[in-house]
């Protein structure tokens, strides 16, 4: 079709980059699942969603799950979006397509989904970090042949609750024809003052121990 030629011309420069260093493309959505807060209400519209890789282990992530700044340092962002994108602005749901043209180094690395309950990382009071064991949860090479089946992932596939937990299962159908939707619950992030108090308490405990 001649119609494609225009596009090809416009993206010629881009295509050179793509062919020389293949990019990863991931289409991510919730599937038969939704994200909920600690109180089991859906994560609000426009809450921040981040897709990327961590350079620390799951155990290290869990050990530092209250230290967002530390986790952020060890996180490389592939793409981000907001709850409600591509899904009729429904709280708790999303569907996003992302192409990491700028950083082909993602290819082959495990995919992590980092979900917050506000639109910015700094203001969030809850977060969840999810992954999955299926091979599809690896950043694909979008020019690989045959095409990888990891171009599409869903929250419903998550089986690694690095931070967060399983939430309630909800029926979006009727009693006669139920449609069950799993939910994944975020985990609370202490307020800075709370975190500080926790830290001071630890210092106090250590000091008391020394005095003994």
């Amino acid at each position, binding site marked *: *079709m*001649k*119609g*494609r*030629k*225009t*596009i*090809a011309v416009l*993206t*010629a420069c*881009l*295509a*050179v980059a*793509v*062919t*020389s260093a293949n990019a990863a*493309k991931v*289409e991510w*959505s*919730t*599937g*038969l699942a*939704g994200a909920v807060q600690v109180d089991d209400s859906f994560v609000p519209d426009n809450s921040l969603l981040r897709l990327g890789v961590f350079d620390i282990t799951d155990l290290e992530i869990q050990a530092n799950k209250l230290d967002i700044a530390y986790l952020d340092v060890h996180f490389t962002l592939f793409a981000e979006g907001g709850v409600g*994108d*591509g*899904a*009729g602005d*429904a709280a*708790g*749901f999303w*569907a*996003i*397509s992302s*192409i990491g043209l700028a950083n082909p180094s993602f290819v082959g690395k495990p995919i992590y989904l980092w979900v917050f309950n506000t639109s910015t990382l700094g203001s969030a009071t809850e977060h969840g970090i999810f992954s999955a064991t*299926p091979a*599809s949860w690896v950043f694909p090479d*979008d*020019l690989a*042949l*045959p*095409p990888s*089946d990891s*171009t*599409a*992932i*869903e929250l*419903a*596939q998550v089986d690694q609750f690095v931070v967060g937990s399983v939430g309630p299962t909800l029926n*979006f159908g009727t009693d006669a024809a139920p*449609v069950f*939707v799993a939910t994944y619950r975020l985990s609370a992030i202490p307020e800075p003052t709370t975190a500080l108090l926790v830290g001071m308490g630890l210092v106090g405990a250590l000091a008391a121990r020394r005095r003994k």
Partner: protein
Amino acid sequence: MNGRTGILGIALAGISFFPHNSYGVDVYSDPAGFITLTIAGTNGSPPGTTSKLSYLGLGMTQFVVKPGRVTSAVTNELVDANAAWATDQFNGANGPHFIEITSGSFAGTIDDIVKTVGSTKKIYTANNLVSLGLPNIVNQTYRIRKHWTIAGVFGAANAAGLAGGAGAASADNILVPDGSGGFTTFFYKNVNIPPGSGIGWRKSDNLTLDASVTKLYIDQSVLVRRKQASSIALKLVGSVKFGQTIVPVETSNNFVGNVYPASVTLSNSGLYTASSTTGVAPGAGAASADTVLIDTPSGLQTFFFKNVNIPPGSGTGWRRSDDLVTDRGSTLIPLGAGFIIQRKSPRPAFDWKSPQPFVNN
């Protein structure tokens, strides 16, 4: 043939190779028929296989809705002074249409129609056909057809029987080439989750917007990723396309389809023309040459045109990447099959003139 074998059934409905046009009264009939496309399931694959990819070629076209002759042309505006079409007849709510030039040296050139104006007897094409190399388009004949769409091929309510789901990851997928080497993924959404998002064909990153009218170009391959064990026989009823087809081949991976309801061999495909500006570039091996990837029961196999007799005695001609000696010119691109042309960078795009692989009778 690993899920791509088409079975041709043609019911000739009165063939007229040249349209008759008498002041707006169009009399035209195409040979009608069907091919059966097989969407392979995972059954028979090695244990642990979770999905199976089928490369489909849309070997039939939609019926001609308007034949005619161009009487004047300026940039992307084509006039048929004898036409009697209505405004927006070939675009908008009537669905996407395309025009094919059917005479002259550029016969087989296809372009989208973006606008139709009844009062001026004009259609507007997506590209400036004159500047793209069709200076003699005036007086050439043309045919207008509706595009295939996802709903047209797979059924508005998924009559094909692909596995639906709440998202693309769990459902069977239709992968439509995006023109730059990648794909756009579609699936049949069979639950109204999230509430209000509806049921029907959807793009993977938009759960709400109806994607059933997404165009499927006849010269592109449509890939289907099946995640169920069973295979699907998909009947595609349409019209037989006559004449050569000009297929743009860009630098990168090109997912193209056999547009005819007949198999074609590499030798008679027209892909190798002895000029790398009009066909695939040859080479001593698959690493340097442009390559053609065809799906087989053993997976994708890579072919190229070998133009040097190295090592001595290995000859020249179509070869498979792992065998420099055996002639592969008779390798089939089956009817109903899609395949891949890898145009290696930095070679520029070219227009592949895909010849009609059968004789009119």
